[in-house]
């Protein structure tokens, strides 16, 4: 079985984010393998360990993205593909999906794994577009996956519980954070990763040109999310209970 995992190199989410116009500042910022993608890599590795599989990591981004791929390889993935091309600067989710589809098709996959959304752009639309381009069904928000014969069985997170769904391979899945506990790279894994194949491709290698990846959307404005307002503190001077009750009535809680 061949598994392709979509991974992304993102600015370290533990560091403060800086904007550059309507785009996230990336130059000179410490990048990491998107923490959300670690769950996808781990899910693929667990399937590999259970059934035997060849796991390919696929990423689109500048050369620095090879760091994220190396991290995934040191966890245990077998090979990696990085699509880098000047024409891809500023690509949107749709263009990314088109590029990844072409790259992923080269691996003849039975299963494609992605995180629900990236930890930088947060559009959450790339996996759906990718499934569409592949012409495959997709199972989203997986919190548990198993494969039996050629059937995938997954738990899909919902707001109140989960669905159990089954789907024939090939299929595209998105996995949630918490589906597993991603492993830490060992020294041996890190050394082994240095010898694993990392294929670098440009747009032309995928039969695409700059016209095919023109952004379909434009971000016209960005603004900060409203910060959580601090709560109201009621100091008890004999009438606190009444004030709490009034507050709750106003909120239509009681």
């Amino acid at each position, binding site marked *: 079985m061949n598994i392709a995992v979509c991974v992304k190199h993102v600015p370290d989410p533990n560091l403060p984010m800086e904007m550059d116009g309507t785009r996230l500042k990336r130059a000179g910022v410490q990048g990491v393998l998107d923490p959300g993608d670690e769950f996808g890599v781990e899910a693929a590795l667990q399937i590999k360990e259970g059934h035997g599989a060849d796991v390919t990591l696929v990423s689109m981004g500048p050369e620095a993205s090879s760091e994220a791929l*190396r*991290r995934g390889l*040191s966890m245990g993935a077998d090979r990696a593909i990085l699509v880098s091309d000047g024409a891809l600067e500023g690509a949107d989710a749709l263009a990314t999906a088109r590029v990844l589809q072409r790259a992923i098709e080269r691996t003849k996959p039975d299963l494609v794994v992605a995180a629900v959304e990236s930890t930088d752009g947060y559009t959450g639309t790339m996996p759906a577009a990718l499934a569409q381009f592949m012409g495959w069904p997709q199972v989203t928000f997986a919190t548990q996956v198993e494969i039996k014969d050629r059937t995938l069985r997954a738990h899909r997170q919902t707001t109140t519980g989960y669905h159990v769904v089954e789907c024939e391979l090939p299929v595209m899945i998105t996995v949630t954070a918490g589906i597993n506990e991603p*492993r*830490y*790279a*060992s*020294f*041996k894994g*890190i*050394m082994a990763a*240095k010898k694993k194949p990392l294929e670098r491709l440009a747009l032309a290698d995928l039969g695409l040109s700059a016209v095919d990846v023109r952004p379909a959307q434009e971000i016209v404005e960005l603004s900060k999310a409203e910060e959580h307002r601090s709560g109201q503190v009621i100091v008890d001077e004999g009438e606190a209970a009444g004030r709490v009750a009034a507050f709750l009535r106003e909120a239509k809680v009681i």
Partner: protein
Amino acid sequence: MDFDLADEQHDFVRSLRSFVDDVIRPRAEAWDESHELPLEAVEQMASLGLFGLPFPERYGGSGADFLTLCLAIEEIARVDSSLAITLEAAVSLGAMPIYLFGTEEQKSRWLPPLAAGEALAGFGLTEPGGGSDAGATRTSARLADGHWLINGSKSFITNSGTAITSFVTVTAVTGTRDGDKEISAFIVPTGTAGFQVGKDYRKMGWWHSDTHELSFSDCRVPEDHLLGSKGEGFRNFLRILDDGRIAIAALAVGLAQGCLDESLRYASDRTAFGRPIGSFQGLQFKLADMAMKVELARGAYYRASWLKQQGRPYRKEACMAKLFASESAVDVARDAVQIHGGYGYIEEFPVCRHFRDSKILEIGEGTSEIMRVLIARELGLTGS
């Protein structure tokens, strides 16, 4: 000159830092309260290959260099000195003598479980009557009927009494040579008749590392349990101690770095007289000194490791690294408690534990006084 770590070392430190922050940090305090080595932590560290780092893959190791081991010890010590010393003692005192001085048969029998972290081994050198004066060893071993008969006792032996301890390497007098005691080393498996593991010490720090007094009374081990050539035990163990000193320096740097990180955070969060206490020059000077000691101690152990790996003499540099790093760790931990004020004196704040854990660094694997004696000797001074 190149002061950068290799790419793989850099990646490994990053991976290990996430492991330490996610897995060890949240439990370090509770483990310490339990006064017992948490075997689940050993298992998790083993899954990262930490116990086999410097050994070749054919013995189940990772084939890393000695500096990489030290980097791992430093990372763990930022958060948990007990686990850092467990790793240090397991690798550089428990497994290393087998790797360096064992026969091929001894290596293939004893090393793989140690490298996998499935077993631990102790290093029995110090005795109740003497630590640094290794030549004053009183434990004896006598060959009779194809077996060594060992009698004596050992003190403060790390990893000697855990549920997964497979053996202890013990030094013993096997005769005299040119008027001096002839010392040899022996592998004594756990459970050998006559080998008694005493109860755990009540220590000032390192509460969840495993430390015992051991006694041997007519303890019989087969003749092939001699480790290294007969009479070479003392010389061999001096070499083990040189390396151990660099590893202890790494541990001290980790502890000091942990104290510095906690102190920087506290100094920016805590306010007094309407502003963060870190904005007062008195504290800034203290923090600057702490940071300087951490950096210089780290440079010292990096260089000692590098000399060792280059195959060049490194005893003086190992002693200096151990001496400077351990004294710096005690200074930095004391200042960290001071910066935390009353909170530094209660166990909920890690610097309290770090302070308790720091003092032993000036004592274990060669006291500060012995370090100075050895450095003076390397300078060509005689008489002490």
